Protein backbone atom coordinates (compact mmCIF):
# COMPACT_ATOMS: atom_id res chain seq x y z
CA UNK A 1 0.00 0.00 0.00
CA UNK A 2 1.46 3.31 -1.06
CA UNK A 3 0.97 6.73 0.38
CA UNK A 4 2.13 10.00 -1.11
CA UNK A 5 1.61 13.00 1.19
CA UNK A 6 2.93 16.46 0.37
CA UNK A 7 2.69 20.11 1.35
CA UNK A 8 3.04 22.34 -1.70
CA UNK A 9 4.03 26.00 -1.56
CA UNK A 10 3.39 26.73 -5.25
CA UNK A 11 0.28 26.41 -7.48
CA UNK A 12 -0.22 22.85 -8.75
CA UNK A 13 -2.19 20.97 -11.36
CA UNK A 14 -3.95 17.98 -9.72
CA UNK A 15 -3.87 15.98 -12.96
CA UNK A 16 -0.08 16.07 -12.98
CA UNK A 17 -0.14 14.06 -9.73
CA UNK A 18 -3.25 11.91 -10.25
CA UNK A 19 -2.05 10.43 -13.56
CA UNK A 20 1.21 9.02 -12.16
CA UNK A 21 -0.59 7.98 -8.94
CA UNK A 22 -3.12 5.81 -10.79
CA UNK A 23 -0.42 4.49 -13.17
CA UNK A 24 1.52 3.31 -10.11
CA UNK A 25 -1.38 1.03 -9.09
CA UNK A 26 -2.08 -1.35 -11.98
CA UNK A 27 -5.03 -3.64 -11.35
CA UNK A 28 -7.06 -1.09 -9.40
CA UNK A 29 -10.82 -1.33 -9.64
CA UNK A 30 -11.55 2.31 -8.92
CA UNK A 31 -9.98 5.64 -8.17
CA UNK A 32 -11.76 8.50 -6.41
CA UNK A 33 -10.36 12.03 -6.41
CA UNK A 34 -11.49 15.19 -4.67
CA UNK A 35 -10.01 18.58 -5.53
CA UNK A 36 -10.83 21.62 -3.40
CA UNK A 37 -10.29 25.09 -4.85
CA UNK A 38 -10.37 28.62 -3.46
CA UNK A 39 -14.04 29.55 -3.88
CA UNK A 40 -14.80 32.59 -5.98
CA UNK A 41 -16.56 34.65 -3.34
CA UNK A 42 -17.73 38.24 -3.43
CA UNK A 43 -14.90 40.47 -2.25
CA UNK A 44 -12.33 37.76 -1.51
CA UNK A 45 -9.04 38.65 -3.17
CA UNK A 46 -6.78 35.98 -1.73
CA UNK A 47 -6.59 33.17 0.80
CA UNK A 48 -3.51 32.42 2.88
CA UNK A 49 -2.88 29.09 4.58
CA UNK A 50 -0.22 28.94 7.23
CA UNK A 51 1.06 25.74 8.82
CA UNK A 52 3.52 24.61 11.49
CA UNK A 53 6.23 22.46 10.01
CA UNK A 54 6.78 20.08 12.98
CA UNK A 55 3.07 19.16 13.19
CA UNK A 56 1.31 19.69 9.87
CA UNK A 57 3.01 17.21 7.54
CA UNK A 58 3.39 14.51 10.20
CA UNK A 59 -0.31 14.93 11.05
CA UNK A 60 -1.23 14.44 7.38
CA UNK A 61 1.00 11.35 7.21
CA UNK A 62 -0.77 9.92 10.28
CA UNK A 63 -4.14 10.65 8.67
CA UNK A 64 -3.08 8.85 5.47
CA UNK A 65 -1.96 5.86 7.58
CA UNK A 66 -5.31 5.87 9.36
CA UNK A 67 -7.17 5.87 6.02
CA UNK A 68 -5.01 2.98 4.77
CA UNK A 69 -5.73 1.01 7.94
CA UNK A 70 -9.44 1.75 7.94
CA UNK A 71 -10.35 1.25 4.27
CA UNK A 72 -9.30 -1.47 1.86
CA UNK A 73 -7.06 0.73 -0.32
CA UNK A 74 -4.22 0.15 -2.74
CA UNK A 75 -2.88 3.66 -2.30
CA UNK A 76 -3.64 7.20 -1.18
CA UNK A 77 -2.43 10.57 -2.47
CA UNK A 78 -2.83 13.65 -0.28
CA UNK A 79 -1.68 17.10 -1.43
CA UNK A 80 -2.25 20.38 0.42
CA UNK A 81 -1.23 23.89 -0.52
CA UNK A 82 0.23 26.42 1.89
CA UNK A 83 0.94 30.10 1.26
CA UNK A 84 -1.09 32.69 -0.62
CA UNK A 85 -3.68 31.49 -3.16
CA UNK A 86 -6.02 33.27 -5.54
CA UNK A 87 -9.67 32.32 -6.20
CA UNK A 88 -9.86 29.33 -8.55
CA UNK A 89 -6.53 27.82 -7.47
CA UNK A 90 -6.51 24.28 -6.07
CA UNK A 91 -5.96 24.09 -2.28
CA UNK A 92 -6.25 20.37 -1.66
CA UNK A 93 -6.31 17.11 -3.58
CA UNK A 94 -7.02 13.68 -2.13
CA UNK A 95 -7.09 10.61 -4.32
CA UNK A 96 -7.52 6.98 -3.29
CA UNK A 97 -7.40 3.84 -5.37
CA UNK A 98 -8.78 0.47 -4.41
CA UNK A 99 -9.94 -2.86 -5.77
CA UNK A 100 -13.54 -1.78 -5.15
CA UNK A 101 -15.10 1.66 -5.43
CA UNK A 102 -16.65 2.10 -1.99
CA UNK A 103 -13.35 1.94 -0.13
CA UNK A 104 -11.88 4.62 -2.41
CA UNK A 105 -14.92 6.92 -2.13
CA UNK A 106 -15.18 6.58 1.65
CA UNK A 107 -11.44 7.04 2.19
CA UNK A 108 -11.50 10.36 0.32
CA UNK A 109 -14.56 11.54 2.27
CA UNK A 110 -12.86 10.51 5.55
CA UNK A 111 -9.58 12.22 4.66
CA UNK A 112 -11.30 15.45 3.58
CA UNK A 113 -13.40 15.72 6.77
CA UNK A 114 -10.24 15.28 8.85
CA UNK A 115 -8.13 17.65 6.75
CA UNK A 116 -10.82 20.32 7.09
CA UNK A 117 -11.63 19.85 10.75
CA UNK A 118 -8.48 18.54 12.33
CA UNK A 119 -5.32 19.31 10.37
CA UNK A 120 -2.86 21.97 11.49
CA UNK A 121 -3.70 24.80 9.09
CA UNK A 122 -4.72 28.36 9.81
CA UNK A 123 -6.54 30.34 7.13
CA UNK A 124 -7.09 34.00 6.56
CA UNK A 125 -8.72 35.77 3.65
CA UNK A 126 -8.05 39.14 2.14
CA UNK A 127 -10.98 41.47 1.52
CA UNK A 128 -10.47 45.05 0.32
CA UNK A 129 -6.77 44.71 1.10
CA UNK A 130 -7.37 43.65 4.72
CA UNK A 131 -6.60 40.17 6.10
CA UNK A 132 -9.22 38.41 8.26
CA UNK A 133 -8.66 35.13 10.14
CA UNK A 134 -11.21 32.38 9.48
CA UNK A 135 -12.62 30.89 12.68
CA UNK A 136 -13.55 27.21 13.16
CA UNK A 137 -17.08 26.25 12.12
CA UNK A 138 -19.50 23.98 13.98
CA UNK A 139 -20.09 21.98 10.77
CA UNK A 140 -16.47 20.85 10.80
CA UNK A 141 -16.97 19.17 14.17
CA UNK A 142 -20.21 17.55 12.95
CA UNK A 143 -18.34 16.29 9.85
CA UNK A 144 -15.68 14.68 12.07
CA UNK A 145 -18.29 13.09 14.34
CA UNK A 146 -19.54 11.01 11.37
CA UNK A 147 -16.42 8.85 11.61
CA UNK A 148 -16.35 8.11 15.35
Amino acid sequence: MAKDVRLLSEPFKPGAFIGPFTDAHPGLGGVCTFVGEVRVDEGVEALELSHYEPLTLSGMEALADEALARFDLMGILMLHRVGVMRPGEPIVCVSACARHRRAAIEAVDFAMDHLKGNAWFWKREQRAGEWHWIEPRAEDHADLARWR
Partner: protein
Amino acid sequence: MAVKVVFLGKLADLAGESERGMAFPLDWSGLLNELDAELAEAVLSDKVRIAVNGEVIANKIQFHAGDGDEVALLPPVSGG
Protein backbone atom coordinates in the same frame (compact mmCIF):
# COMPACT_ATOMS: atom_id res chain seq x y z
CA MET B 1 20.41 29.47 23.45
CA ALA B 2 16.97 29.93 24.93
CA VAL B 3 13.45 28.66 24.44
CA LYS B 4 11.98 29.51 21.04
CA VAL B 5 8.30 30.37 21.35
CA VAL B 6 6.38 30.20 18.05
CA PHE B 7 3.06 32.01 17.53
CA LEU B 8 0.67 30.49 15.00
CA GLY B 9 -2.39 31.90 13.24
CA LYS B 10 -3.92 34.99 14.77
CA LEU B 11 -1.64 34.70 17.81
CA ALA B 12 1.19 35.84 15.53
CA ASP B 13 -0.83 38.99 14.75
CA LEU B 14 -1.42 39.64 18.46
CA ALA B 15 2.26 39.06 19.22
CA GLY B 16 3.38 41.22 16.30
CA GLU B 17 5.94 38.53 15.41
CA SER B 18 6.00 34.86 14.53
CA GLU B 19 8.51 33.79 17.17
CA ARG B 20 10.28 35.08 20.24
CA GLY B 21 13.17 33.85 22.38
CA MET B 22 12.44 33.42 26.08
CA ALA B 23 14.65 32.50 29.03
CA PHE B 24 14.77 28.85 30.13
CA PRO B 25 13.46 26.93 31.95
CA LEU B 26 10.01 28.02 30.78
CA ASP B 27 6.71 26.81 32.19
CA TRP B 28 3.07 27.92 32.03
CA SER B 29 3.28 30.74 34.59
CA GLY B 30 6.60 31.91 33.18
CA LEU B 31 5.09 32.04 29.70
CA LEU B 32 2.06 34.05 30.83
CA ASN B 33 4.39 36.53 32.57
CA GLU B 34 6.24 37.10 29.31
CA LEU B 35 3.11 37.84 27.25
CA ASP B 36 1.23 41.12 27.24
CA ALA B 37 -2.31 41.08 28.61
CA GLU B 38 -4.21 40.59 25.35
CA LEU B 39 -1.96 37.77 24.16
CA ALA B 40 -1.99 36.08 27.60
CA GLU B 41 -5.78 36.17 27.59
CA ALA B 42 -5.89 34.57 24.14
CA VAL B 43 -3.46 31.83 25.22
CA LEU B 44 -5.59 31.11 28.32
CA SER B 45 -8.49 30.04 26.07
CA ASP B 46 -9.29 26.31 26.31
CA LYS B 47 -9.05 26.15 22.54
CA VAL B 48 -5.39 27.19 22.38
CA ARG B 49 -3.01 24.24 22.61
CA ILE B 50 0.70 24.03 23.25
CA ALA B 51 3.27 21.81 21.57
CA VAL B 52 6.84 21.30 22.75
CA ASN B 53 9.27 20.12 20.07
CA GLY B 54 6.38 18.99 17.84
CA GLU B 55 4.48 17.08 20.57
CA VAL B 56 1.09 18.48 21.54
CA ILE B 57 0.83 18.60 25.34
CA ALA B 58 -2.35 16.96 26.72
CA ASN B 59 -2.68 19.47 29.55
CA LYS B 60 -0.97 22.65 28.44
CA ILE B 61 -0.52 24.15 31.90
CA GLN B 62 1.90 21.30 32.62
CA PHE B 63 4.27 22.06 29.77
CA HIS B 64 7.93 22.44 30.53
CA ALA B 65 10.65 23.65 28.18
CA GLY B 66 14.41 23.82 28.56
CA ASP B 67 17.35 25.22 26.65
CA GLY B 68 16.94 24.84 22.88
CA ASP B 69 13.33 23.63 23.08
CA GLU B 70 10.65 24.96 20.75
CA VAL B 71 7.25 25.85 22.22
CA ALA B 72 4.39 26.41 19.76
CA LEU B 73 1.18 28.22 20.71
CA LEU B 74 -1.58 26.75 18.53
CA PRO B 75 -4.95 28.45 18.13
CA PRO B 76 -7.86 26.33 16.85
CA VAL B 77 -7.53 25.34 13.20
CA SER B 78 -9.69 27.18 10.70
CA GLY B 79 -11.69 24.40 9.11
CA GLY B 80 -13.66 24.84 5.89
